[in-house]
């Protein structure tokens, strides 16, 4: 996986159906300064690891059901 740069995000948001974002907002994802959001690059690297986890046919989480003690 190549390193993410701001141009990729700008192209993604301008060429796909998306909201309008300021350049500095997309830069924040590549070079975070506000301290709230994990850098997007680090998040993508974690997601890449998770992509290799075999979840078989596990369905996405929805509501929860009571589990009786066995």
């Amino acid at each position, binding site marked *: 996986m190549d390193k993410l740069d701001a141009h990729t*995000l700008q192209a*993604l*948001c301008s060429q796909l159906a*998306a*909201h*309008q*974002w*300021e350049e500095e*907002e*997309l830069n*924040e*994802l590549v070079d*975070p300064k*506000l*301290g*709230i*959001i*994990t850098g*997007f690059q680090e*998040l993508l690297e*974690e*997601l890449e*690891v*998770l*992509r290799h*986890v075999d*979840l078989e046919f*596990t*369905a*996405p*989480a929805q*509501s*929860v*059901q*009571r*589990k009786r*003690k*066995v």
Partner: protein
Amino acid sequence: MREEELAFASINALCAGLASGDISSPVALTQFFLERSKRLNVDCHAFIEITEHNALRDAKRLENMRDAVPLRGIPFASKDLFDVEGVKTTAGSRVLADNTASADATVIKRLRNAGAVNHGKLNLHEFAYGITGENVVYGTPVNAYDKSRLAGGSSSGSAAAVAFGLVPFALGTDTGGSTRVPAAFSGLVGLKPTFGRVSRSGIIPYSWSLDHVGTITRTVADAALILQTIAGEDKNDPDSSNEPLDDYLAALEQPGNLSKLKIGVPRAFFFENADSEILAVTELAIDNFRAHGAQVVDVELPKMEHTRAVSLTVQMPEALSVHSRYLKDRGHLYSCDFRAGLALGQCLLAEHYIRAKRMMTRYRQQTNAVFEKVDLLITPTTPIIAPRIGQRRITIDNNDEAIGNAVTRYTSFFNMTGHPALTVPSGLHSLGLPMGVQIIGRYYEEAEVLIAGLALEENFQIPKPSFHA
């Protein structure tokens, strides 16, 4: 009752005072808390709006109603995500500064039907995005034990309002710890019930998959009383559960219940990289359970290394979807940190989101397998005490971490699994700030969680805050 005694009384004590005549009337009680709130809010920033007129109107209606409703005249306030008819729901943001609710949220309606009197709208991190509770529009709620520190967030005003004695209980929401964390930082009891146990209808969402309604109270018995009032099926919330309700108050009155419980301690991750005093007091809490006759065993939960990534990957696309209706015309009114988070939600791929939701299912399966062996889990609520206002990072055991990550490290997993979780005060740190212990139970078994919380509460009382009122 003297002012401080009244301000810090439990709901049960206030109900008893009204019934006996020690407190003359719901109007007198309402006036007392309104006056105190107006005086102290200047410093603590708990309220965004104190709805004095509505509170007095509702209290007057209750004057001639004797014992007909369980919460007759009891004041409360709600995080400013909950709709209250005729009152603005701002979500702590300029974006919704003119947003007046046309009806009560389901939980507000249930509390008002039970006789509780709403005193207003409480401060929060803008749209519940963020755990520090810092708010540039409405001010940052401060910690009642040290005003230079955070009350915690995102339900910052909810914790500050109860901790400063402005209301006996408050409603919050909890997406990654946003009720439990501020409750723990402020020396209070915070309950996040099972996902679906309490309706979210009429509450501005942040992330549908992770949002829970939470309560902040002074005592475990009060948490049980409020849960009994607000829980239950609601046809207006598609995630609301039709599981029957337990009698939570009756459960707390059964002596010896704790000796029947088996308690699991997940030492990996949840007892690592934390303040040593917090770990020590959690061990004392575990010893307390043993002393009550509970069986205590070590357990292993799923590996936690990617849980924050999973949570974030679910949260941000959902938050973006919530806010897409406002971004075009009001996008400039959001704070810049929230807009950056929404931009992240825009740039994640659909498969990332779905995979994260599937990981949530896997976490649920793995945690439910643990709950086949034990009845409850116990962990510290947070690895650190309340940070200073403006603090961005913390170093523990040579590990440097963003405050937002550190604070939610032990809580956010249970938003993904949906299990009920309670924080109870466990002691005062040597720096004079509260610490909390978290108890987690099986789905819909809030009663067991509350029983365990009561056992801790009986032996781990902490002093009231000693700020100048």
